[in-house]
């Protein structure tokens, strides 16, 4: 089970951002790197790291980094 911070670090890696550049409150719409390729990268991350199928509809429902983290952290 990964901690919230570990999941944030995975997201930073997927978005090619520096470590500690994201927080739970970071708004996805305000992150320039959160583009279509980043979304695809997160969908792949979801499948490979968390074995969770993440649909485009679910992706669109995420507003903050915390939303994604909580989705991954939920059992």
């Amino acid at each position, binding site marked *: 089970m990964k901690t919230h911070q570990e999941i944030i670090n995975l997201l930073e890696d*997927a*978005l*090619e951002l520096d470590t500690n550049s994201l927080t739970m409150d970071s708004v996805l719409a305000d992150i320039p790197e959160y583009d279509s*390729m*980043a979304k*695809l*990268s997160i*969908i*792949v991350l979801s*499948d*490979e790291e968390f074995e969770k199928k993440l649909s485009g509809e679910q992706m669109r429902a995420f507003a903050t980094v915390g939303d994604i983290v909580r989705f991954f952290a939920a059992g």
Partner: protein
Amino acid sequence: MQQSATLSGSSLRVDQIPCVNSTANMYLLAVGSLCWAIDVGDANELLINVGPNRNLEGVFITHPHYDHIQGINDVARSFPNCCFYGSTQTLTGLKDSKLNLSFYHENPVVYSGDSCKIFPENGVQLGLSGPLIKGVPTPGHFEGSITYWLSSYVFTGDSFIPGIPVVTKLKTGNRQESRSSLNLIRTLLSKNTIICPGHGPMKLSEELEDFDFPDLYEST
């Protein structure tokens, strides 16, 4: 944009074919009645451009991301002798829907044939007396990416799209390798080289500016 050139008596014609099902490009290389393609993202568009009286001899795949290969099975059915060339990793990606990323889209793509070959180091001659197409590994966007060059044309796939930062966020992507590949691609360019990218318009190398290489000249 259509471009053609004549090489040592054999006429080479290069046409860009934008995919309708994505933003990717394919290119049709024609020498007489024989054709080859760069990438196979949209079978319908490729088959229309090959036409009823020409044969598609082979396809040179820059990298196996779904938008560049999703027409492969339909094209293979239409041209059973067509050979698909690429790197070792690309050929693996043709049969692995997670590696080619189609698994995460509506229609997973898994190449069901066996007519594929690792692109040879010494290149492939187009026809008996046609020009030689060569390739060089340009990892970064994908570890097995190949940039092909033929006469004055360079087919960069997604390893270099003028003015657009290279996407290295996807599986096997690597920013450092991408920078090295961009520098390598620059060495392939002469004044009259025509850059044929995997997305966007073709561009003459003499028209390139520093901002066409945003990964090498990042604004501060």
